[in-house]
């Protein structure tokens, strides 16, 4: 019963004028993320006219076209910058920016930290599959060390960027991490993030079975989903573990939750000051 009503919710938010099926590989985690975003938005009772979804380039970049919001598929890495301009002009809109890990953290890394630092009221959702999927499984800033990718055939030697910790340090108002296995938790974090006034980030840990999974012989989509389940621990569990024990684990939880002034609200005060000076 529950499932049926959920698919009815999805149908209300998916575009019927768009030609399906979608571009994602069968078994991809991005669809799970999209479903969770839809249910989160629905749970908040928002008007679709007041919601915008903006993306960059890559597999996750293709998400907005399927959903019946104001949607914009921009250039690689720049989604947050486009969204910043829109938010400045339409501060009342809820703007969800969906990005992959390469899009958000490599080419778009500068915009990512500065959007968080400014605390502008955008919700960033990073689908972290630790690779460039669309181009065939090259390493990204979140690829774990030692594994093979299409551009590290002898093993990856770079350190990982911890997305959630980075956003929390850069000044975001709300930061959380969950996985596409823990879909209810993910959904709840999305709802909390969209409700937050300032900059919010949710990292959704996912997988790419057709690239990294194939290259490293990790099995099917369901095998990789199981890996994510087995690797993940809660923030509370992590607190009682040593750094060695935490190594390689996906830590789920809320990493920042603070009330600091949102950028466009602050800018309204700038306007008030400027107008006073003119008078």
């Amino acid at each position, binding site marked *: 019963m529950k499932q049926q009503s959920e698919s009815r919710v999805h149908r209300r938010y998916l575009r019927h004028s768009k030609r399906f099926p979608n571009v994602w590989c069968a078994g991809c985690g991005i669809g799970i993320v999209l479903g969770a975003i839809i249910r989160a938005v629905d749970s908040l009772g928002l008007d679709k006219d007041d919601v915008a979804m903006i993306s960059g380039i890559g597999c996750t970049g293709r998400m907005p076209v399927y959903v019946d919001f104001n949607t914009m598929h921009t250039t690689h890495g720049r989604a947050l910058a486009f969204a910043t301009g829109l938010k*400045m002009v339409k501060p009342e809109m809820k703007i969800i920016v969906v990005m992959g890990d390469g899009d958000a953290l490599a080419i778009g890394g500068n915009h990512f930290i500065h959007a968080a630092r400014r605390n502008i009221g955008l919700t960033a959702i990073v689908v972290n599959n630790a690779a460039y999927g669309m181009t065939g499984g090259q390493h990204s800033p979140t690829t774990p060390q030692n594994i093979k990718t299409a551009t590290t055939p002898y093993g990856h030697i770079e350190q990982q960027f911890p997305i959630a910790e980075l956003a929390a340090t850069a000044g975001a108002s709300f930061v959380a991490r969950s996985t596409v296995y823990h879909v209810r938790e993910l959904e709840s974090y999305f709802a909390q993030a969209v409700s937050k006034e300032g900059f919010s980030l949710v990292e959704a840990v996912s997988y790419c079975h057709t690239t990294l999974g194939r290259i490293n012989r990790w099995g099917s989509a369901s095998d990789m989903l199981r890996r994510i389940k087995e690797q993940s621990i809660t923030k509370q569990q992590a607190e009682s573990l040593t750094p060695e024990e935490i190594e390689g684990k996906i830590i789920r939880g809320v990493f920042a939750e603070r009330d600091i002034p949102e950028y466009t609200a602050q800018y309204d005060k700038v306007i008030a000051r400027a107008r006073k000076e003119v008078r």
Partner: protein
Amino acid sequence: MTTRLMQGDEACAEGAIAAGCRFCAGYPITPATEIVETLSRRLPQVGGKFIQMEDELASIAAVIGASVGGAKALTATSGPGFSLMQENIGYAAMAEIPCVIVDVQRLGPSTGRPTSPSQGEVMQARWGTHGDHPIIALAPDSVREAFDLTVEAFNFAERYRTPVILLMDELVGHMREPVELPSPGTLEVTERTKTRVPPEWYKPFENRPEGPNVNVPPLVPFGEGYRYHITGLHHDERGYPTNRLEEIQPWLERIFRKIDSALSDIILYEARGIEDANTLVIAYGATARSASHAVRQARSRGHRVGFLRLKTIWPFPEEVVEHAASRLHHVVVPELNLGQLALEVERIVGRHKVCRVGRADGEMIQPGEILAAIEDLEKPV
């Protein structure tokens, strides 16, 4: 109106305000910084917003985002930043988002000789982003014209749903002149076209054969009940990605047609003494000041020299140049580069008629240099 001593950059910023610009995103770079500084002060006074972004890539992206939200929006930069903006200028052309990009040219390539004048970005303004696309670029030659052409740039951007480049140069940007600005009510300001159809009928990239807004479908701001898709992918009339050849080619033809069918509106120029001329000087931007002076000197010495100053440099005023130069023997093209706009002139009038007077060391071309070129050509053989 009172006369004010004003810088070209400031006049550009005031022109933006007068044109209805209410959003600017920028990143500091000499010699364009005064534009964003002025707008950071002026925009909030009129209820607009300014944001200093983390780089030029973000600045142009924020400007496009703001325009999608319904605001007239501008960014200002110089060569190095203009290079960084190219990808998203292409996005604005592809998604047909009105916006104004001011490039106050300084000597390049690369960091070059900061921050001496140049006109080295004529070709970058035309072809800087990848792929075929039309573009409009305007080049003012005075402080007052920096104001006027900024207003015009916004009007063109809105009228033709396109990015417009205001190609200033360091000399015009930093020069101070006494100017009298027009009072707000006297300006012609174009507002964004509104759609008359309900959301379910709305096609943001409609290719209608005839009727109102032919070639330029109205762009409804986000958040106003028309939920649609914008992408940098080739798209159909609703904005959804397409691989269908019967949708890609007609779209491309339409975005060129919207500019090509409006040349009489877009091509702005000033012509003087062309009727009786043997030799024509074609100039634009700051160089036109030296050229104008040189032409006056040449005429006072009895040479029959005409003067054509291009305010619109892209689309290139082919017909104007052809008409002015076809029966003449010589065309002199002074510019602060080693021959960029001259290539276009050569394409129209033939290579052998054109005398390039180029300079790319960061110093202005003196009237004497242009006069010498004219006299050399006018010498009886």
